[in-house]
């Protein structure tokens, strides 16, 4: 059996304040296999978003090891982290986080520009492909504010996919959407998983468990056996 996509070993993180240290994650161990669709669930303050940000190399941790496809990436510097995120990870945020001053097309183009790997034609082809996949190719010249929340989240998904990452990290992807739109988005994310993408999603919505292959529960910075929602 090949090594897992992600191995977290004894990850600890604390916030240091004047009042003293405040532990957020208390030594987490987690293996994630390629092709899984995992939800990280927990109450507010349980540390689930912090864990997701650590997985995405956006946040730092104080102790432990992070091994990605067999490579120890614990001590990457900022530049390597940036490269790593660009190559391996697609982010989907609760608030979509598209750049308002750019068109849809330009928004999806950004991650490709930061690695200057593809030619203009290749970029065009890839962007077209991903926009078609989320069903919004005709909106390519629009601006984010001209689209509905659901449409913006689809664009964000296209942006996450355009670099062909191993891993999609989704932070409450339906948190800002109504239930009907949420379902559309979840269907879309499920399809990605069906095509083989590994997805880690943070949510506190129990209903979303029907899409996932595995759920982990966080309580006060530790994994918990009980379903803590």
């Amino acid at each position, binding site marked *: 059996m090949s090594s897992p996509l992600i191995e977290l070993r004894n990850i600890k993180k604390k916030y240091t304040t004047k009042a003293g240290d405040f532990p957020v994650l208390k030594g987490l161990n987690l293996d994630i296999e390629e092709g899984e669709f995992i939800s990280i669930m927990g109450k507010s303050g349980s540390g689930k978003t912090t864990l997701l*940000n650590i997985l*995405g190399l*956006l*946040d730092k941790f104080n102790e432990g090891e992070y091994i990605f496809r067999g490579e120890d990436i614990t001590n990457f510097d*900022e*530049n390597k982290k*940036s*490269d790593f*995120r*660009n*190559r391996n990870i697609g*982010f989907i*945020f609760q608030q979509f*986080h598209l*750049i*308002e*001053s*750019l068109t849809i097309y*330009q928004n999806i183009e*950004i*991650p490709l*520009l*930061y*690695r*200057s790997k593809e030619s203009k034609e290749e970029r065009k082809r890839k962007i077209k492909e991903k926009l078609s996949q989320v069903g919004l190719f005709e909106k390519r010249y629009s601006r984010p504010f001209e689209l509905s929340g659901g449409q913006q989240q689809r664009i964000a998904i296209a*942006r996450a996919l355009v*670099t062909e990452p191993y891993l999609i990290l989704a932070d409450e992807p339906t948190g800002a959407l109504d239930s009907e739109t949420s379902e559309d988005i979840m269907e879309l994310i499920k399809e990605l998983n069906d095509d083989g993408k590994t997805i880690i999603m943070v949510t506190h919505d129990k209903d979303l468990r029907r899409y996932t292959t595995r759920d982990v529960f966080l309580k006060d910075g530790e994994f918990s056996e009980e379903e803590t929602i």
Partner: protein
Amino acid sequence: MKLYDLLRTAWYSIRAYKFRIFLTMIGIIIGIASVSAILAIGEGVKKEATSSMEKSNLNKIIVEYHSGFESDEVTIRPFEKSDINEIKKIPGVQNAKEDDEEELFGVSNFEEVYYFNRHSSTELKKYDEKDKTRKVFLGRNINIIEGKSDKRVIFLSYRVAEELFKEPEKALGKAVKMKGELFEVIGIGEELNMEDFEISLGAMEEMQQDISIVPAKAIKEKDKTEDYIQKISVFLEPGVDKDEVIGEVKEKLYELHPDVKGEYEEFNLQELIDSMQKIISSITLFVAFAAGISLLVGGIGVMNIMYVSVTERKREIGIRRAIGAKPRNIMLQFLVEAIFITVIGGIIGIILGYIIAVIAGQFMPIKPVMTVSNFLGASSISVMTGLIFGIVPASKASKLDPIKAIYK
């Protein structure tokens, strides 16, 4: 990130905040416009001054004779036609001829004037009907009929009249000697008021008052008939040591004229042009530097707007970092944005400055000149301004923690 994409990214951001960027740009436009207007005017002054001098060859050196205060020198002929041939033989001399150029910088020749044992020298100009008539102290100006004739009359400047006659009013109707000929004084110019020199625009006109005038043909014909040579122009071969060759020329002249008591002196145009250009350049630079202070204010405006921009676009920075931008990419993006503002402002400023200079040129006796080096200079000042005032905000942007920037 490729340069083209970097520029494109910066351009999109600038377009998104057109109005406030334009407001920021005004500071840069004013700064660069004033600097380039002053440079263009300075260059125009330099060119004007130089071109009036450069009508003559730069390898040409004029050798003159200065008689000193010996009144009987009028009988001495400091140059002979044969001298010219002798001078031509000196190594390093390309050519030599009688200098017949009437005017240098629009000013006439110097001429010695005698009244019995008194003597003075005056700038002498030939009558030209296009010239303004002089303000008269006593007598009258030379009229047009006399002016075109060879009649031996002279309109003396006040200073010369005073030097020759002690009381200038006594000069009228007397005869003065010049180049061995007698000229009747028919008019005396008004006294030169030294205080007026301070009003620079009036100065040129006032200085004209110290010039004496004779009819157009009164002197030229005399020159021809008598073969009287006042000056010799020596043309040097390119690349030779000027001082050395001219030294030899002078030595030769003293040798040929052992009886002269005065001195042969050279008039080197190049030196005069050089020092004059230097003076104009440094004045221009100083004034341009003073004008550049407005550019400093503009630059601080750019820095301010970039700070606002970084704070306002924290989330964008965070998103970009999350999807793969390195700190360097963020830094460059904001730096290029700042440079964009100053360069666009700079280009508008250069054009505006040139227009201002051209308009100003309508009211001044010079034509402003935009040189390539001034254009490049002003352009690189704009780039530098963007760089200097953009680097601090840009580096702040690049150091933002992505996680804090996203969830600000």
